[in-house]
């Protein structure tokens, strides 16, 4: 366990669980957050993922909807 994430609501879930969640929900009901670099996103990404590279998260955090389940990769 990573002590830094002990008091945050984030959880580590498997790709199969994400896939299942996506199949059972509508696209607007959740957020997929891609924190990699733009070139990596361009090569491949999960359909509909929002690109928010790690270095930009602080400035652009308001682009996320805090009410929706968010899957980060």
């Amino acid at each position, binding site marked *: 366990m990573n002590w830094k994430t002990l008091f945050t609501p984030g959880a*580590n*879930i*498997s*790709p*199969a669980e*994400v*896939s299942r969640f*996506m*199949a059972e929900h*509508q*696209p*607007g009901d959740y957020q997929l957050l*891609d924190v*990699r670099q*733009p070139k990596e*996103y*361009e*090569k*491949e*990404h*999960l*359909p*509909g*993922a*929002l*690109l928010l590279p790690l270095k930009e998260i602080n400035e652009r955090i308001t682009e996320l909807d805090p009410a929706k389940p968010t*899957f*980060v*990769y």
Partner: protein
Amino acid sequence: MSGGIIAFNGGKAVGSEDFGMGDFVSGDFDDAFQMSYAMEEGLRQLYLAMEAQVDDTEAKALLGRLAVFEEGHKEKLKAMFPTGTATDTVVETLEGGFDRSQVLSYFQSQTGTLSDILQLGMMLETQALDLYTRLSRKAGSDESRQLFEYLAKEETQHLKFISKEFDAVLEAR
């Protein structure tokens, strides 16, 4: 997500964050509707062009079914958004932002099996789901946002339909 995108086995999209958005620049609902409608028609015509290229009876029948399926999407779109202007204009851009002639030329290099057709269909639907979800975040009006959200939901249904057909082909092997 543990393992990141490499471990993800589901459909993936390609392209930059604004890929395919150029056709929707005006932000106007009617333009967005016309373009989405024309992309459905473009995909229908692609399936018909592919149908003309293949010799296998089963492959022909599948492509014919997929073309009819696209016709159904157009009708549903018109019914959901009756204020939109629906014209059967031929567009080079397909659902998801790919160029029709490029996809057709790619298909010519394939053997044209049922698997080839269904995998291509799944790829196009995944790209379309990606594009409409990205567009829904950038929509200039509530009406356009509702249109893109509806289209993204529809694409997930199309994807499920084609995946089911693909599963049936894999099971029959």
